[in-house]
């Protein structure tokens, strides 16, 4: 899970889940706490799904 996807690609990560911003990858201070929790949950669920997905090459899991 990372914000700067090109760096993850350069260093050779297999499964990449894009996140919010460098100072707050898994949150967003502009949201109210309930919405931010929803955002965090979605990101974690996406990462768990990515882990269970077979990949044959470097894969970025974008929003569906």
């Amino acid at each position, binding site marked *: 899970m990372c914000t700067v996807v090109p*760096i993850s690609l350069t260093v050779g990560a297999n499964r990449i889940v894009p996140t919010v911003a460098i100072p707050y990858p898994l949150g967003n201070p502009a949201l109210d706490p309930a919405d931010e929790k929803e955002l965090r949950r979605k990101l974690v669920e996406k990462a768990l799904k990515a882990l269970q997905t077979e990949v044959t090459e470097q894969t970025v899991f974008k929003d569906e």
Partner: protein
Amino acid sequence: MRLEIGNIFIKDVQFGDKTEVKSGTLFVNKDELAKIAGDDERIKSVEVFLARPGESVRIIPVKDVVEPRVKVSGDGGIFPGFMTGVDQVGSGRTHVLKGAAVVTTGKIVGFQEGIIDMKGAGAEYTPFSKTNNVVVKVEPLDDLKQHEHEVVVRLAGFRAANYLGEAGKDVKVDEEKVYETKPILEQVKEYPNLPKVVYAYMLQTQGLLHNTYYYGVDVKQIVPTFMYPTEAFDGAITSGNCVSACDKNPTYVHENSPVITDLFEQHGKTINFLGCVVTNENVTLMDKERSSNMTAKLVEFLGADAAIISEEGFGNPDADLVMNCNKIEGKGVKTCLITDEYAGQDGASQSLADSTPKGDACVTAGNANVVVTLPVMDTVIGYPEVANVIAGGWDGSLNADGSITAEIQVITGATNELGFNYLTAKTV
């Protein structure tokens, strides 16, 4: 846009009854300077010190370094957007107290502030050991928030520099320089047979005390834009950076922007220097993509054959550097990159966070992780204990005898990515 620069060489700085320049000495009325620098209700106290080359003096933590300048003619004033309205600067005539500098210090704001030693091993790494420094120590009110503390000290430094700069307004100068960039169609015609070069000037804008300003605008909020090179010489770009001291650009470095002065040096001889694209280093991927797209578009639109791209800071801005390189090269424009390295204390690690095969012309300003010991100084202006917390230091960097062992990252300007530093390499 044409700017005359008149350099007044300052060889010494002294306190005096009147702030004035006499025979190469800058005399400073200490109380008047403290009053002007401290003219902000959020400031509790201001103290003024002098630190000259070769003296056994350490300044810590250093926030910004500012060069005193004054507009003699032409629109606007030094540091537009903060001190002098927002008229376009960069034309007319500007006088510079060359050899003098204002250094701001005081209680630490962030964790990424610097050290300037005027003598010893540390002095060899910082360009500001060679300037006659007027050190302004600013303490804010106790309950001031961090970001406001940063603003208060920054503006105090600008007020101090502009106050000193005024002393050079009617002084006979020691050196004259003239810099000119014409509107693009005329500029292209002036040297039709020389390769056309644009400078992509990346500025640190990660937010949270990592900010840079253009005419007072927070650069993370701009889309990349064109700048006449001489605008920088009148303080159009100012630092608001609490970023690693070695490779942030203090305001002084923007005022003397070395890539610009070197490009001007070759202008009309080996190249045709068309101007600058000012761009940012933001914290979301979308911002990085948007800004690098816009930068490449502007470089192409200006008709460049080649572009110099300089980075400020390190880490995720390496991704901005690589995007700018790939996209500008993608327009068929040759690039040369300027960066520094974080290759570990032994120099064996990967130097940058990102990379590209297109970055095959790259200049490094040095490895910021190299460890040095800075000897004891007779006088310390500021707070030596912050050596244990600033970036490049660690718990224990301040030794019992007052010496400091830390990475050169702690030294202001040690690996400056505009080349305003002393590190060099030679083949033996």
